[in-house]
C-alpha cells in the first residue's frame, strides 16, 4: 500500500465519475454540439460556410459547457472543503492537479470527439442543398473533427486549472467565459491595425482554427492555432501549480 501516480489518477477518475453533475454537464455539452450542428446544417448557408463549419457550429457553446465542467471540478475541492482530505492523502499536492487535468481533459476529448463525429453524421444527413456535402475522406475533415475533440479537451483542462487557481466556482467560470467569449468582442473594438494583429491569437480564435477546413483570412493555420491555445492552457496550469504548492490549503 503506497501512493502511486496511477492511484492518484484512479482517485481523480472516481471523483469525476461519482458526481451526477459531471455526467449531466458532459451530456449537455455533447447535446449542444450535436443539436446546434444539426440545426445549422439544416438551415444555414453562406459564402464561405462548409458543411464542417455548420456541423461544428455548436462548438463555442460546448466549449463553454466543458470549461464550466472543468472549473467546477477544480473549484469544488475548495468550496466543499474536500481539498483538506485530498491533500492529506496526497501531501505532495501537484499530482492532484496533473491527474485532475488528465481525467477531465481525456473525458472531454473522448466524449466531444464522439460528439463531433455524430454532429457531422447527423448534419450531413439533414444538410440543406445550398451547401456542398463532404465525406470523412475529404481533405481536412478528419482533422477538423478530431481537432474539435482536442480543443474541447483542452478547454476542460483550462477550466480545471482556473478552478484550482482562483478556488471559486463563480470566479473561475467568469474568467473562462470572459476569455472565450468576451475578449474577442472587446478586441474588435480596438483600432483595426491592433485588432487584426492580435485577433488570431485570442484563445477561442486560436483554438477554433483547428476546426476550419481551410484557414480563413486572419486566422492561424489549424495546428498552429491549437498549439497557441495549448500554450494558454499550460501557462494557466503553471499558475495553478504554483498557487497549489505555495499557498495554504
Amino acid at each position, binding site marked *: *500500500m*503506497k*501512493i*502511486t501516480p496511477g*492511484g*492518484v489518477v*484512479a*482517485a481523480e*477518475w*472516481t*471523483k469525476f465519475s*461519482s*458526481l*451526477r*453533475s459531471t455526467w449531466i454537464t458532459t451530456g449537455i455539452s455533447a447535446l449542444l454540439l450535436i443539436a446546434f450542428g444539426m440545426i445549422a446544417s439544416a438551415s444555414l448557408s453562406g459564402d464561405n460556410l462548409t458543411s464542417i463549419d455548420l456541423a461544428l457550429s455548436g462548438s463555442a457553446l460546448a466549449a463553454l459547457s466543458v470549461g464550466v465542467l472543468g472549473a467546477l471540478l477544480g473549484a*469544488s475541492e475548495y468550496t*466543499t*472543503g*474536500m*481539498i*483538506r*482530505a*485530498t*491533500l*492529506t*492523502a*496526497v*501531501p*505532495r499536492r501537484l499530482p492532484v492537479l496533473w491527474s485532475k487535468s488528465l481525467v477531465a481533459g481525456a473525458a472531454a476529448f473522448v466524449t466531444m470527439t464522439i460528439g463531433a463525429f455524430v454532429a457531422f453524421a447527423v448534419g450531413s444527413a439533414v444538410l440543406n442543398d445550398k451547401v456542398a456535402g463532404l465525406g470523412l475522406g475529404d481533405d481536412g475533415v478528419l482533422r477538423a473533427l478530431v481537432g474539435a475533440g482536442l480543443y474541447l479537451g483542452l478547454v476542460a483542462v483550462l477550466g480545471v486549472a482556473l478552478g484550482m487557481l482562483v478556488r471559486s466556482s463563480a470566479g473561475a467560470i467568469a474568467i473562462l467565459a470572459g476569455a472565450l467569449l468576451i475578449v474577442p468582442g472587446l478586441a474588435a473594438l480596438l483600432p483595426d491595425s491592433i485588432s487584426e494583429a492580435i485577433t488570431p491569437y485570442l484563445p477561442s480564435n486560436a483554438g477554433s482554427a483547428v476546426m476550419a477546413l481551410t484557414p480563413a483570412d486572419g486566422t492561424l493555420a489549424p495546428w498552429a492555432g491549437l498549439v497557441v491555445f495549448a500554450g494558454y492552457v499550460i501557462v494557466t496550469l503553471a499558475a495553478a501549480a504554483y498557487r497549489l504548492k505555495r499557498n*495554504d*490549503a
Partner: protein
Amino acid sequence: MIQVRELTKRYGAKTVVDRLSFTAKPGQVTGFLGPNGAGKSTTMRMIVGLDAPTSGDVLVNGKPYASSKAPLREIGVLLEAKAMHPGRTAVSHLLTLARTHGIPRSRVGEVLDLVGLSTVAHKRVGAFSLGMGQRLGIAAALLGDPAVVMLDEPVNGLDPEGVLWVRNLLTGLAAEGRTVMLSSHLMSEVSLIADHLVIIGRGRLLADTTVADFVTAEGVRVVTPAPDALRTTIAGPGITVTSTGVEELLVAGTSARKIGLAAAARGIPLFELTPQNASLEEAFMDLTRDAVEYEASR
C-alpha cells in the same frame, strides 16, 4: 509519534501559534486543549502540511509528512466535519481517498462498518447530519490503518452515545500502540480518556502534563484553630499558603500527607485536610483565563 518543534504560524501580523513544542507518543492518548481560537486547528493543519509553518517544524513518525510514501498509513486525520463533496455517497468519498494508495474497496466497507455507517453507505453525504459527517470523517481517518490518529474536536455534534463510542474507539486505538491525539476546548471531553495533556492559549504552550499532575497542582484545603502556627511550620521553598477564612488555609506546593505529618509533629490540631480536587474544568479555566480570545462581554 508526532513531534512538534518550535512551531510558529503568523497570519499577517497576528501570531496564531507561537513557538509551540510538544510530543505525542505512541500508546497514549494526548489531549490537545485550549479555548476557542487558541490555535489548535492551525497546529493540526500544520502537522499534516495543509498550512506551512512560518517557522519551526513537525515530524510524523520521525519524518516530514509530505516525504512519506504512504501518507495515509502514517497518520489519519479528522480536521473539520464535512470536508467532503455533498454530492458524493459515503462509499465514493472514501474510495476517492482509498484509490490514491491502492487501498482495496473491502477496506472501505470495513471502516464504514466500524463507524456504524454501513446502512447509509450509498447515501449522499450532503444529507448527513453533523454527527454522521463526523463518523464518516473518522472512517476516512482510519482508512489507511494509520500509526497515528489525530482528530480535531471529534465529539462535536455527536449524541451522548456517540461520544462514548469515540472514547472507547480512541482508548482502543491507543491500547493497540498507536499515537492518538484529539483536540477539544472542553476539559471534560478529554479528561476521561487522555493520558497526556497539552494545553495551549493564544498559540503558546501553557502546560504539558498528565491528567493526574494537572489536578494535584491545585493545593490542599486545611482547617485548623491555629493557622498562624501551621503557616510557620510548613513554610518552605515552593510552598504558598493563602488564608481563605478565619480558620482556613489553602496550601499549594506540598501534599496533604506532608502537612498532616508536620502538624502532628507540632501538636497542631487539624479539623479538615482536603486535597483540592478542584474540578479539572476549573483548573483548566484558571490556567487559560488570561488566554481566552473570545470572552463573553459582561
